[in-house]
C-alpha cells in the first residue's frame, strides 16, 4: 500500500521541499498541503516543517495557527494521526495547543545553525519508534527561538508521562531540562527543534536523522493499516 505523508506549506515555510526530498529519498511519498486549504487530503501523517510561516514578525507561529489547514491538522491529530512539527513547525504546534509549552529566544540571543548531539529518551512516539532509548544522534539545529519553556506542572507531566522525546546532550539554547523535543500524551504528535531531514544523507555529514524519518514513515504505515 502507498503511504502518503503531507508536508504543510505556509507562504514563508522554507524546509518543505527538504522534508519532501528526504522522505522520498527513504521510499516514502510526500505531498505539499497548502496552508489556505482546510483539508489534509486524507494523508496518513503530517509534517509541519521549518521556516518562517508568515514571516514570524509576531511571535513565531502566532499567525500560522489560524491558517485553515491547521484546523484540519488538529482534527487529524485528535483522531490519532501522526503529526511531527520540526523547528518552526514545533513552534506552530505549541501555538495551536497541540503540544504544551512555548519556544522563546535562544539564551545567547543569537541564531544558531550547528550540528548537535541528541539523546533519544522515549521510543513510544511517531518519531522514535525505530530508535533505541539512549541513542545519541548528530542532527543540525537551525533556529533563533528554540529555547523551550513551560510551567512547572506541564514539565512535571512531561516527565511523569515520559513525553520528553529527545534531549540535548550539550544544551545550546537554554531549553528547560535540555528539552529538544516533546510529544502529546498519545505520542502521535511530536515537536522538535532539530531538523532530522538535514541529517538524512552521509554525503551531507550525518545520516542520524534517518531513523527518525523512518519511524515517521512506519507510524504512517501503521495508521494507514488501521484505517483500512
Amino acid at each position, binding site marked *: 500500500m502507498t503511504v502518503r505523508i503531507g508536508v504543510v506549506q505556509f*507562504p*514563508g515555510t*522554507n*524546509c518543505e*521541499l*527538504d522534508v519532501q*526530498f*528526504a522522505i522520498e529519498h527513504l521510499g516514502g511519498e510526500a505531498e505539499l498541503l497548502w496552508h*489556505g486549504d482546510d483539508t489534509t487530503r486524507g494523508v496518513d501523517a503530517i509534517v509541519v516543517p521549518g*521556516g*518562517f510561516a*508568515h*514571516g*514570524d*514578525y509576531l511571535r513565531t507561529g502566532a499567525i500560522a495557527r489560524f491558517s485553515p489547514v491547521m484546523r484540519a491538522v488538529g482534527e487529524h491529530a485528535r483522531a490519532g494521526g501522526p503529526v511531527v512539527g520540526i523547528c518552526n513547525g514545533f513552534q506552530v504546534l505549541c501555538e495551536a495547543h497541540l503540544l504544551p509549552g512555548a519556544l522563546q529566544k535562544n539564551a545567547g540571543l*543569537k*541564531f*544558531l*545553525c*550547528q550540528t548537535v548531539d541528541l539523546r533519544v529518551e522515549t521510543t513510544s512516539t511517531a518519531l522514535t519508534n525505530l530508535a533505541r532509548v539512549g541513542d545519541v544522534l548528530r542532527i*543540525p539545529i*537551525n533556529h*533563533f527561538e528554540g529555547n523551550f519553556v513551560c510551567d512547572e506542572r506541564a514539565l512535571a507531566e512531561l516527565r511523569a508521562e515520559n513525553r520528553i522525546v529527545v534531549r540535548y546532550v550539550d544544551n545550546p539554547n537554554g531549553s528547560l531540562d535540555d528539552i529538544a523535543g516533546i510529544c502529546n500524551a498519545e505520542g502521535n504528535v511530536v515537536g522538535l527543534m532539530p*531538523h532530522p*531531514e*538535514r541529517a*538524512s*544523507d*552521509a*554525503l*551531507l*555529514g550525518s545520516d542520524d536523522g534517518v531513523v527518525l524519518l523512518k519511524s515517521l514513515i512506519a507510524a504512517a504505515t501503521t495508521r494507514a493499516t488501521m484505517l483500512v
Partner: protein
Amino acid sequence: MAEAQSEAIPEDPLHRKLGMTDDELAAVVDELGREPTHLELAMYSVMWSEHCSYKSSRAYLSRFPTEAPWVLVGPGEGAGVIDIGDGLAVAVRIESHNHPSAVEPYQGAATGVGGIIRDVFSMGARPIALMDPLRFGSLDDARTRYLFEGVVSGISGYGNSVGVPTVGGEAVFDDTYRGNPLVNVFCLGILPIERLVLARAEGPGNLAVLLGSSTGRDGIGGASVLASASFEAGDEAKRPSVQVGDPFEEKRLIEACLELLDAKLAVGVQDLGAAGLSCAASETAAKAGAGMDVDVARVSKREPGMNAVEALTSESQERMLAIVEPENLAAVLALARRWEIRATVVGRVTDTARFRVYDGLFDAIGVPGENPRPPIGDEAAPVTSDAPPIADVPVESLGDGPLYHRPVARPAAQDTLQAADPGPQLRDKFPVGSDLSGELLALLATPTIADKSWVSRQYDHQLFLNTVAGPGADAAVLRVKGTEKALALSTDGKGRFCRLDPRTGGRLAVLEAARNVACSGARPLALVNCLNFGSPEHAEVMWQFSEVVEGMSEACEALDIPVIGGNVSFYNASGDDDIHPTPVAGVIGLIDELRDRPPAPALRAADDIVVLGDLRPDLGGSEWAAVVHGLDGGMPPLADLGRAGALHELVSTLVRERSVTGVHDVSDGGLAVALAEMAIAGDVGFKVELHYDGCTPAEACFAEPASVVVCCVDPKETAAVCGEAAAAGVPARVVGTAGGDRLIVKGALDVALADATHAWRDAIPALMSRET
C-alpha cells in the same frame, strides 16, 4: 509638453544638487532638444550616476575575458549564467552594499542580500546559495564591533528567513576599512535551461506588471542628493533614505515569480534595484528595442502625497517588474493573489522607442487593472485623458550614460611603499633559531585568521540539503540534486596585496579563489568580481583600478576562466583615505562526479604531510608582517600564472582521485597557519621540518606564497602523489607527519594543540563580548 515646460528647471542649478555636472546636463538638453522636466532630470541623474552607468569604469571592464562555450549569459544582465550540463544552468551575481551598511549595518546588509537574490531569480533561477565576503576595520574598535555584529545579524535575519542558505564567505579585518566596511554579497541560483529568461520588454501592447511591495519614500535617488533638493513647496517629508528589508515579502516574490516563469506567464522579469521603476522599466524596453509608457497613478504608493519623481526613483525593496501578454494578465493576478503579493499594471510596451511617464493615462485609455489607492486618504489629481506626458525621453538614452576616461596616475609614494620590504627587519628580529611559538599563537588569534563560527553559526548554511562542505572549508561544495555533479564556490581578495602592487594583487585574488575551488576537486567554470575602490576622481585610484582589472584579466586568461559578471563600487573611503583597492573574485567550479565527501582541510593521524608548490621568502602584505608586526610595505608574493595553473590541475586531480586524505591551501598566515588549521580541524598535532632554500624558518612558516597547497597523504600513497606532482612539474616535498598533540616545526616552534585551538577558537567571541 506645455504643462511639462512650466515645470522645467529654472535658473537654480538643480542638476548639481542631483549630482550631475554641467556637461551632463548639457548632454541631456542636447539629447532632448529642450530643457528636461524635473522628473526627467531626476531619472537621468540616477541612471547616469556612477552606480548605474559605470561611467568611470566601463572603459576598463571590456578588458575582462568573457567568453567560453559554456557561458549562456555574460556580463550586463541580472546575473551571469553558465551551462553545467544535464539541462541545468547556474546563475551567479555579486554586488556590494558597502555604503548602506556603513550607515545602518543591519538593514544595509539585509537589503544587499535581498537585492542580489532578486537579480538571480529574475533570470528564472532558484537562488540556492549566498556567500558574503565582508571587510571591516579592527575589532578593537567599538564601532567596528557594532558594524560587524549588525551586518552579520542582517545577513542572518534576511537570508535565513527568505530561505536561501549562506554557505560561505569571508570576514577580513584591516584598519583600512574602519570607516567604510565592505559588504559584498554573492548569490547563486540553479535553473532548468528552458526557464532562462532575460529582462526584455518584448511585444508592443504587452503590460508591465509591478509585483511585490508598495512604493515608499525609502531610498529615493539612492543617495541623499534628492532628499536635500527642494522639488515642491511644502517638502515636509525629508526622510532618511534608509531602505528596509522584508524577507517574508521576498520569499513570496521568489515563489510567485518562479511559478510565473514555469507557467510561461511572463515574457521577461526584472528586479527593481538602483533607480527603481525608472531603471527597470526603461532598461527592459531599451534591451528589447521597444518603448514603454508608465502610468505613475497606477503605482501603489505607501503614503499620500508622493510625487512622480518619488514614485519613479524610489528604491523600495522587494519589487519586481514582469512583462506580461494581456491575455495572461488574469492568470498572473490570480497567481499573485495565491502568494499574497501585490500585482499592479503600471506600464505598457510600445513601439515608440520612447520612455514616457503619464499621470492617469491608463484609466482613460482603458488599460486593464485596478487603479490602486494609497492606504491613507490621498486625493490624487483628477484623471484626464489628454494629460501630456510628464517625462518623454528616448528609451536608450537613460541607459546610455556618459563615458569617462578619468586621469590615471601611479601614486608618487608607490616606489617607497614597495621598497619598504619587511623582510630585513623581521630577519633581524627573528634570526634563525628564534622560538616562533608565540608568533604562531598571535597569528591564530588575529580575527582575519581566527575561527569564524561566531559568524557562520548565525547563518542557515544547510537549507535545500545541498551543502556537502560549508563555512570553514576552502570552497563551499554544493551537490546538484538529480545529477552526480557538485558545484564549488569561493570568494577571495586581499586589499593589502593590491595596495602594494595592484596588478599582482588582482592576479592573486583570482588565483586564490581558483586554488580554493581546486582543493575541492573542481575545475573552474566562471568568475564574478566585485571591485571595491576609493574615489575615481583620484588619479591614483584609477591607476589602481586599471592595474587590478589588468591583473585579474591576465589570471583569468591564463586559467581559462570567463568573467560572467561583476560590480564596481567606488567612493569607498575612511575619512580622507581611500580604502585599499579590494577586488573580490568569486569563482564557480564544477565537480563532474561527487560520490562521497571530499577531503577536508584537516590532518589525519599517522599520515604524511606533503607540501605542493614552492615556498618563497616574500613577506610583503602578509598577515604576520602587516598585522602582527605593523610592517605594511614591500612587494606581494609572486603570482606565476603558469605554475598556478599546473598546481590547480594537480590538486584537483589528486582530490578527485581521493589520493589525499586532507587538503588545504596556504593563504593568510602562511604555511604554519595552514598546518595549524588542519591540525585543529583534525584534532591531531604534527611534526614537520621546513628547510627551504632562501627562506629563514620564520619566512617558511609565515610568508604567504601564491601557489602552495598542503596535503595529508596516506603513507602508502605518498610515493604515487609525489610522482604525480613530478609529472605535473609541481614541486612536492614530504615535510613530516601528523600525530601527537603538539604542533612542531623543528627548530622553529612547538605549541600544544590545545593552546593553538583555544587561541584560534576564542579570539572572535572574546573580542565580541568586550564591553569597551
